[in-house]
């Protein structure tokens, strides 16, 4: 049967692989050879699930959003990843990877972060395990995300500014990769999304797959069936989407809807809608869709949401797009902000602006009255308060 999961070499169709300089080969190879067997070890599974339960607060609820459903005349469930410790799904992955790092005997962790959510989630698990943590963050992002910088510092992490290139997420990722080249033996790199060279996209997707694993049995309890008609998630790099889609990838009757950030509009020159604007290329060691010039230089994306502000997309999602398995919708800043405020008023939940993009599809994308639509509510909006205040002049 045709599968939308990674093959043994880390390819999703034509996308994925490990396009890395030789300096990174031993690091990635060590991980590639060990990640699946470590994840299968009973002691690993036990500790991972125990921490997800007692520390992260899983399972997160699958909540039937009654008033939102009434408004859009369909059945909308929200998978409440916003209720995870640290405020988003990111911690599912960092818990998994810190345990992986321990099994591999690493005593130093590096990570990249854009808005700071993955940085906070990484600093959190490093504090939990008492492991040294260095987080790379673009100089520009450090300036505009001061609360998260403070959080990381309080958690004991060192935040190093990425001053190269455009000084944002992609450059922070470059700096983290360079650090890994310079520290190949003792350091594990905790990538925050389903991006980067094999085995990262597959490994991160597996750690996040707990999201759809829970949706299946929770939906069984509520609707008497495991499969919704649609799963909806926002996509920057795509880790929350990968987790929400994971157990439905090869279930054709479940529609997969990926929502990208159109920024100020797809044709505005200020957008992060990679599926619409990207071409096949190599970014951060992975063959995927990315936004680039005709000459193959990687361009800087734009979105009001820092978490969707990435010029590429994970290879799983590139394949979902190219194969037609996934439906890709892009949402502008304005529509996302409106949908975020709407969820506050209708359901009493303040969502992250990333997540608001997924919520914004209901305005134009119509569903049947009896369709069951699960939206992955990937994060809470506390971190975005200043943005909401500025935007709505609150």
């Amino acid at each position: 049967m045709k599968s939308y999961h990674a093959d043994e070499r880390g390819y999703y169709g034509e996308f994925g692989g490990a396009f890395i300089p030789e300096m990174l080969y031993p690091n990635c190879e060590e991980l590639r050879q060990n990640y699946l067997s470590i994840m299968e070890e009973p002691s690993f599974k036990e500790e991972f699930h125990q921490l997800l339960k007692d520390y992260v607060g899983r399972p997160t609820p699958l909540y039937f959003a009654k008033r939102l459903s009434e408004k859009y005349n369909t059945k909308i469930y929200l998978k409440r990843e916003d209720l995870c410790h640290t405020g988003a799904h990111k911690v599912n992955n960092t818990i998994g990877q810190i345990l992986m790092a321990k099994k591999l005997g690493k005593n130093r962790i590096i990570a990249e972060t854009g808005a700071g959510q993955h940085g906070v989630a990484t600093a959190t698990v490093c504090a939990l395990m008492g492991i040294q943590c260095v987080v790379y963050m673009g100089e520009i992002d450090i300036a505009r995300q001061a609360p998260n910088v403070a959080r990381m510092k309080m958690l004991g992490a060192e935040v190093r500014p990425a001053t190269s290139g455009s000084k944002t997420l992609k450059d922070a990722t470059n700096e983290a990769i360079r650090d890994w080249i310079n520290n190949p033996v003792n350091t594990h790199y905790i990538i925050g999304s389903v991006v980067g060279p094999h085995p990262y996209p597959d490994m991160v997707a597996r750690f996040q797959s707990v999201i759809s694993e829970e949706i299946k049995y929770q939906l069984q309890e509520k609707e008497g069936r495991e499969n919704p008609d649609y799963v909806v998630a926002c996509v920057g790099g795509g880790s929350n989407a990968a987790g929400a889609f994971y157990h439905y990838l090869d279930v054709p009757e479940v529609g997969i809807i990926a929502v990208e950030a159109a920024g100020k509009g797809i044709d505005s020159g200020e957008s992060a809608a990679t599926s619409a604007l990207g071409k096949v290329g190599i970014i951060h060691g992975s063959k995927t869709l990315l936004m680039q010039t005709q000459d193959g230089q990687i361009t800087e994306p734009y979105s009001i949401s820092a978490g969707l502000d990435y010029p590429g997309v994970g290879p799983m999602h590139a394949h979902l797009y190219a194969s037609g398995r996934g439906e890709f919708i892009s949402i502008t800043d304005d529509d996302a902000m409106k949908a975020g405020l709407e969820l506050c008023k209708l359901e009493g939940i303040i969502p992250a602006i990333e997540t608001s993009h997924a919520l914004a599809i209901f305005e134009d994308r119509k569903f049947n009255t009896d369709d069951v639509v699960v939206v992955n509510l990937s994060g809470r909006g506390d971190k975005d308060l200043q943005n909401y205040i500025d935007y709505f002049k609150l």
Partner: protein
Amino acid sequence: MNRIKQKLQEDNKILSIYFSAGYPNLDDTVKIIQDLEKNGVDLIEIGLPFSDPLADGPTIQESSTAALKNGMNTSLLFEQLKDIRKTVSIPLILMGYFNPVLQYGVEEFCAQCEEIGIDGLILPDLPLDVYQEEYEDIFKKHGLINVFLITPQTSDERIKAIDDASEGFIYMVSSASTTGTKQGFGSEQSEYFDRIASMGLNNPQIVGFGISNAETFEQATQKAKGAIIGSAFIKHLTANGVDGIGDFVKQIR
């Protein structure tokens, strides 16, 4: 015979210089190449600038960014180099990241290289297995040698596989680092140089990363066939422009 192979047969203590095309000024490319040859450099690596040079330290990042800002791109570089073989006869290698080559079209890119008289390519993020499966035939058809890297962390088994896939030379990265990050060699490098020298590889090795002056050049070439200088030369260009290239080369050997 390919100029790289020819050169490696003739000479020892090969001095190879890397620079970013389009830096410090957009039109300096040809003059830099000519001056390097005039001053006795054996081999030149012309850097095709990339927006996200993962394996490079700050010096080459900055020269790449500046070159792109100056307006450098793949087509323009080919245009600048179209008559280079009228004045320059030493081996020329293009070094860059894979994405710009992929966007240009690998076949097209290789055909252009052949037409100009480029002898080889170094694309650090084009992995060995992908090269062999998808691109080796194209490179060979156009007479291009693909140069692979090894590092102190590369296993003996993989070094042998890389040796088998190589023709010309192996680019021996001196330490676990990005370019221009570390200065000088310690006991770790000596052991590594000895280990590689004792492996009896088919291809000679040229050492890169960490070579910046006569002392490190001498150390690197005691066991290896040659050495590559990149960041130190770019710093020289930053400070002095394209004048005084001869002075730089003379202080190396």
